[in-house]
């Protein structure tokens, strides 16, 4: 009898313990599942007016994407809008995106795009200008969203008036930038100091510095992208070409007549290719941005004129042998004394075939808000930030400010004063770049003279532009 009573008491105690545990667990779960929406609720708009609608987002694999995914439940809790997404590697992403946009299927409502991409999507009217949403007080609390916080140059880069051959920085805003890259010179300060090599201020000096590094330190003097397609052109090379010609030369004129064979550009291509052939990597013709970055970080190269934010790899001792040894400088200017770096921003835009346009705008507004972008940079290393407030945040400054003893931030800020979208606006930029890069191969392997290679590239491009009706 006594024994049975003790058993029952134990059972009651165990039941209470289990019940209590379950209540605690449920409470913790409920607290964890309830994101803190106070920041967003400060905006004077009704976040829930499109409750129940659905969005599909097309995303490219990128640090920003990584930062966004864990936050999507926050957006859903804030707005009651259901979000589905598809993430693809860059090449597949763009191919699928064009298929979706061109057929007006509206599978992707919000898309990841950027200045040069918008030229392809805006001309046939596949994407929507965002200002009507931005300026509608029912949809956007501008005082809360602070559009003026974005660096003006980056907003300008995402504007285009639709005129092929010109018009960037004017007209409609097609997308909102979530990060930016410009192109600078990363160089091995330790080697430059040791052998008293001058940080180059002309392209002839760049080639000379590369030669001296190779001769003295026994490593490749300079890294450069070299695969036979557009990426080879679109960073260091095009920035160099535009700077060398004082920003006055362009790959095509206003009537979309190709101008690669212009003597100014032919000269530049000669300097660049000679430099790469003499002092660059032996497998230049097969170098991707990634190979170049890895080689430089492994301490096997003297300079790399390319993306500024590669610095986060160079300065990470886990990934790099050159952390703390890298200097950062502007790419050499032309005779006019100014550098004209190219510019790229990943940005969010909206497909015209979207049924739930206002809901899509809510997503863009939330995803490009100060709080979300700050999180992407601080927690997920989404460099460089597109908002001044994120750039000036002490946590960002602490990281960026340490690179190159402050030279990184100084150089990038200086660079952004004159950096601009380097390409002439046209929907065939990718093909033009591919032909251009193949012409560089012809020069590199001495199959054609620079003059002849560029003349043939012009002919090929002009024929295509004419076929498509781009030439006036």
């Amino acid at each position, binding site marked *: 009898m006594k024994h049975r009573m003790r058993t029952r008491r134990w059972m009651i105690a165990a039941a209470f313990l289990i019940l209590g545990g379950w209540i605690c667990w449920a409470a913790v779960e409920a607290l964890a599942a309830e994101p803190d929406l106070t920041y967003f609720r400060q905006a004077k708009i009704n976040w829930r007016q499109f409750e129940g609608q659905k969005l599909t987002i097309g995303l490219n694999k990128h640090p920003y994407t990584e930062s966004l995914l864990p936050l999507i439940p926050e957006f859903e809790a804030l707005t009651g809008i259901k979000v589905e997404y598809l993430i693809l590697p860059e*090449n597949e992403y763009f*191919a699928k995106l*064009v*298929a979706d946009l*061109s057929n007006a299927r509206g599978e992707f409502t919000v898309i990841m795009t950027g200045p040069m991409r918008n030229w*392809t999507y805006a*001309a*046939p009217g596949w994407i929507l200008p965002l200002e009507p949403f931005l300026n509608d007080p029912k949809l956007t609390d501008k005082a809360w969203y602070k559009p003026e916080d974005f660096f003006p140059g980056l907003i300008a880069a995402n504007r285009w008036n639709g005129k092929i051959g010109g018009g960037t920085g004017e007209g409609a805003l097609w997308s909102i930038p979530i990060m930016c890259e410009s192109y600078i010179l990363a160089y091995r300060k330790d080697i430059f100091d040791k052998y008293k090599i001058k940080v180059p201020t002309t392209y002839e000096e760049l080639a000379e510095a590369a030669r001296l590094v190779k001769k003295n330190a026994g490593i*490749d003097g300079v890294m450069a992208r*070299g*695969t*036979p*397609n557009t990426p080879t052109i679109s960073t260091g090379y095009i920035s160099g070409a535009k700077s060398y010609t004082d920003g006055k030369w362009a790959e095509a004129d206003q009537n979309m007549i190709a101008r690669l064979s212009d003597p100014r550009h032919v000269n530049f291509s000669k300097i660049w290719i000679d430099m790469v052939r003499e002092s660059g*990597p*032996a*497998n*230049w*013709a*097969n*170098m991707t941005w990634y190979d170049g970055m890895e*080689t430089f970080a*492994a301490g*096997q190269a003297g300079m790399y004129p390319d993306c500024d934010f590669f610095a986060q790899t160079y300065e990470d001792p886990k990934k790099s042998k050159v952390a703390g040894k890298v200097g950062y400088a502007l790419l050499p200017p032309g005779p006019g004394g100014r550098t004209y770096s190219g510019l790229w921003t990943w940005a969010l835009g909206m497909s015209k075939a979207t049924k739930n346009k206002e809901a899509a705008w809510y997503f863009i507004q939330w995803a490009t808000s100060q709080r979300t972008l700050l999180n992407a940079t601080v927690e997920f290393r989404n460099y460089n930030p597109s908002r001044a407030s994120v750039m000036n945040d002490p946590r960002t400054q602490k990281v960026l400010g340490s690179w190159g003893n402050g030279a990184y931030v100084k150089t990038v800020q200086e660079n952004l004063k004159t950096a601009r979208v380097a390409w002439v606006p046209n*929907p*065939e930029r*990718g*093909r033009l770049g*591919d032909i251009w890069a*193949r012409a560089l*191969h*012809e020069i*590199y*392997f001495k*199959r054609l003279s620079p003059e002849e290679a560029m003349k*043939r590239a012009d002919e*090929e491009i002009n024929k295509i532009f004419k076929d*498509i*009706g781009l030439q006036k």
Partner: protein
Amino acid sequence: MSRPHAPARQRDAILPYLLLSPGLLLLLGMLYPFFLGVYYSLTNYYLQYPHLFRFIWLRNYLKLLEDPLFSYSLRFTLGYALVAVVVQVGLGLAVALLLNSRIIGRGVIRGMMLMPLMMPPVITALMWKIMMASTKAGILNYLLSFLGLGPVNWLGAMNSAIVSVFIIDTWGNLPFVAIILLGGLQSLPTEPYEAARVDGAAGWGVFRYITLPLLKPFIILAATFRVMDSLRIFDVIYAATVGGPADATMNLHMRAFFYAFQWYQMGMGMAYAMVLLILVFLASYLLMGYWRRAAEQTSL
């Protein structure tokens, strides 16, 4: 009288179609994109300029002839397939013979042989690309340095890039050939060999006059698969060289890809793909006929 039979007969008439229906559906699923591809190759279809869409008959095929890279990519495609099939089948036969003989650790080697087949070609190519780094950091050049050779500029020069792509492709596909031929070797009848032994034949004579003729259907089968795959090779080239340097490894498939999925010019892309399809079809048609004759001969 016939009444009760009618539903049964009806069922008998429908049944084969019912059983075949998954296959027929699959066939439809294959034929629709195929004919769409043929149709697109006769149009001026750009993904990004829908307003230019027109039926232009064979003009894309005429434009192919003007394309500065068509003739090279055609020659490269054919030449590559020819060399690939000869070398890979030859090497595969050697490997199969080796694995069919009594060597130590045969089971382990046979198992390990399958590894390249399990890897996606893109991964294979990227792995080799790292090993083929042009500097001393590349493992291949490091190994060569012990022999006093190199460094070789594997993927960065025109001729060596072609050879490098070929090495990567061969590494990935040699086991396939070897396995087919090994299976063939193991299924050969033993009587001719016993008779040969009685007659005092050995070594090369047995191989030349017994093994090779009996193995012929298998060799042709392996060659057919390799010809088709080598004509269509894409992933290895794309991952290793993007068709460069200076277009050295540009084949028809790469060109079709560039037109269709980089420049969104579907009409031209499909025209390139159709030329490739015709080549693959012709080559496999010829080889399959040859195979049938060889199979009939050996079964006699």
